[in-house]
């Protein structure tokens, strides 16, 4: 199993009447709600928490990309990842990911990911999302019905840039480049492992199967609601006649651990409530620009994950959220049982643990994280013994890596020039 500690980086100071006074947490969120001076501490605390997860033995620490978003103050995940690469030594740096259709030219992603791989000593796991409609269309102005074509071209260009050893010309529809020759290139060969966040389209299933990429379902609605979608994926994997290694798939799950179920509710309910009621308050007009999803996907009935459940999240109580699996919360034993159900039920080897929730303060987050790492994670380690040696979907760091900050505080003497 691969457990990645993930931080969405929500803004923790949305007011109590946020829902009533604002139409959306995303795209046209009120500028005045962001306080740059306060963000100094928020950013550094969030990065500290990611680094803390590395010390507890999580396999990966994860970041992602959102724009103009009150629950994700990380428009550039690569900036955060660069900081993490320096301050951590073991965990994979899981960037899930860069919305490659938005980088102009996408060679920029090939370069920045190569830099991250080099700085971290080969610890990069690279994610290539299409990006949500909010980010890609409404914030970054990409034409909805051409987004996927542009994404595909960006993907092809990045992979070629990573794997070609000679300069090449790239005559794409969206990118015309006469001299592609990235410098540096990644440590991992032929390139870092790739994870693709998807939302239920058959085209994306096939894309992952064809390229040996891991398919990630990043939902906030939990494992019970994900069953149909993941069944669709595994059915496709079977149809295509490839192995059903659980590492072909990843899943994001909100997790809160305490000593007892009661303590979990007492400690975490307000923050879970903050996340589901304030952070997910997205104006439905931004959820799905016409043309963004393929007709085939709409016809399968897979509605946008940003479409709230009927009646909205506001009506969901702690009991609803935990029983319906949006959130897995409770004592280590409760969480272990439910995680086991999730892992077996969805057949997923990569878990993206959403352990910082809403406006959760650092001490509660560390408490929950430590309990998960010490009392839950070890018991889930060996869920797929037959697949233990499947390393196709994870990073391969250098055996010998340097530690950041290992220079002496001052030069010992005048350097001796070489003869």
């Amino acid at each position, binding site marked *: 199993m691969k457990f990645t500690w993930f931080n969405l980086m929500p803004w923790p100071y949305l007011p109590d009447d946020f829902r009533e006074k604002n139409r959306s947490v995303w795209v046209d969120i009120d500028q005045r709600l962001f306080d740059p001076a306060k963000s100094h501490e928020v950013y550094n605390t969030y990065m500290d928490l990611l680094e803390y997860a590395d010390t507890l033995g999580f396999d990966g620490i994860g970041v992602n990309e959102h724009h103009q978003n009150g629950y994700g103050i990380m428009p550039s995940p690569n900036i955060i990842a660069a900081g993490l690469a320096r301050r951590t030594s073991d965990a994979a740096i899981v960037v899930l990911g860069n919305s490659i259709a938005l980088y102009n030219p996408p060679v920029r992603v090939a370069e920045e990911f190569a830099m991250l791989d080099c700085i971290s000593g080969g610890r990069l796991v690279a994610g290539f999302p299409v990006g949500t409609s909010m980010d890609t269309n409404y914030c970054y102005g990409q034409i909805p019905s*051409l987004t996927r074509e542009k994404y595909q071209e960006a993907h092809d260009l990045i992979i070629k840039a990573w794997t070609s050893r000679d300069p090449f010309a790239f005559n794409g529809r969206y990118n015309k480049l006469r001299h592609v020759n990235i410098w540096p290139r990644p440590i991992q060969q032929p390139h870092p492992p790739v994870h693709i966040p998807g939302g239920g389209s058959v085209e994306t299933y096939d894309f992952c199967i064809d390229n040996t990429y891991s398919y990630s379902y990043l939902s906030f609605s939990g494992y019970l609601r994900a069953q149909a979608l993941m069944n669709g994926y595994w059915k496709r994997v079977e149809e295509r006649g490839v192995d059903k290694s659980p590492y072909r798939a990843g899943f994001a799950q909100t997790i809160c651990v305490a000593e007892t179920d009661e303590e979990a509710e007492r400690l975490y309910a307000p923050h879970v409530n903050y996340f589901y009621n304030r952070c997910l308050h997205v104006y439905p007009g931004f959820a799905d620009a016409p*043309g*963004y999803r393929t007709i085939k996907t709409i016809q399968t*009935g897979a509605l946008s994950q940003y479409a709230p459940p009927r009646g909205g999240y506001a009506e969901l109580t702690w009991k609803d959220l935990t029983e319906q699996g949006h959130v897995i919360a409770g004592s280590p034993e409760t969480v272990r049982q439910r995680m086991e159900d999730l892992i077996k039920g969805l057949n997923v080897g990569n878990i993206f643990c959403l352990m910082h929730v809403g406006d959760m303060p650092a001490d509660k987050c560390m408490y929950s994280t430590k309990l998960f790492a010490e009392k839950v994670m070890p018991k889930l380690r060996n869920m797929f013994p037959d697949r233990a040696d499947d390393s196709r979907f994870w990073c391969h760091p250098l055996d010998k890596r340097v530690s950041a900050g290992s220079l002496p505080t001052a030069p010992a003497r005048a350097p001796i020039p070489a003869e």
Partner: protein
Amino acid sequence: MELKTVQTRHVPVRYLEGGAGPDLVFLHGAGGVTADDPLLAALAKTHHVVAPLIPGYGDSEECGEIRDMLDFTLHTWDVVEALGCKDPILVGHSMGGMIAAEMAAVQPNDVSRLALIAPAGLWDDDHPIADLFSTMPYEMPALLFHDPEAGAAMMTAGRDVEDPNFLQTYLVANARQLGMAGRILFPVPERGLAGRLYRIKAKTVLIWGDSDKLIPPVYAHAFKKSVAGAELVSIPEAGHMITLEQPQAVAEAIGRLG
């Protein structure tokens, strides 16, 4: 009006045809056009009307090869050619007006009479056009009609909007139609037309609803300034969907072209 098909280089194109008289090509807006459109009916009394559907609209086949403004413009010229229309009266509403204006700018010697009904295609920072793509269906009538209540009734036409089957059909149609429209209208409905309007030689009439909230009448004046000799007909008690709200007045204004 009768729904027919004509083959073009890229795709078979569906078009509505009716009436007798001089040829008139009508290009619909982002919402599409149907056989019971009141403006087409009014125009067909005196003209041979053909109204091609943009690929992806109605039941027509989509076309991946039509991506940008030039593609839309040349494709629509291909349709006019395939329909055998020579120097037709070229009429366009909203997105269709943007395409018609481009056609007249690109081939100025092939268009002698042009009617632009609340056309898209220009942008004024002081008067930003509402984002049609993020507008929810229930918000549309207030944006598109002078009389939102009557407009809402026209848009839903007695269908049960709560019915999940209707919703599925609606989402698919919306994705097909607005997905295609987005190629020239998203996120800002401007693709450089302002720099090409000077080429238009056609006798031009601009037709605008006084209470157009989507593309406000200030844009009428911008078009008038850029198209030499253009005449502006302002119509009271009409919003952006002037073609549905005041079809007779619009047909009369088009009649001024002769």
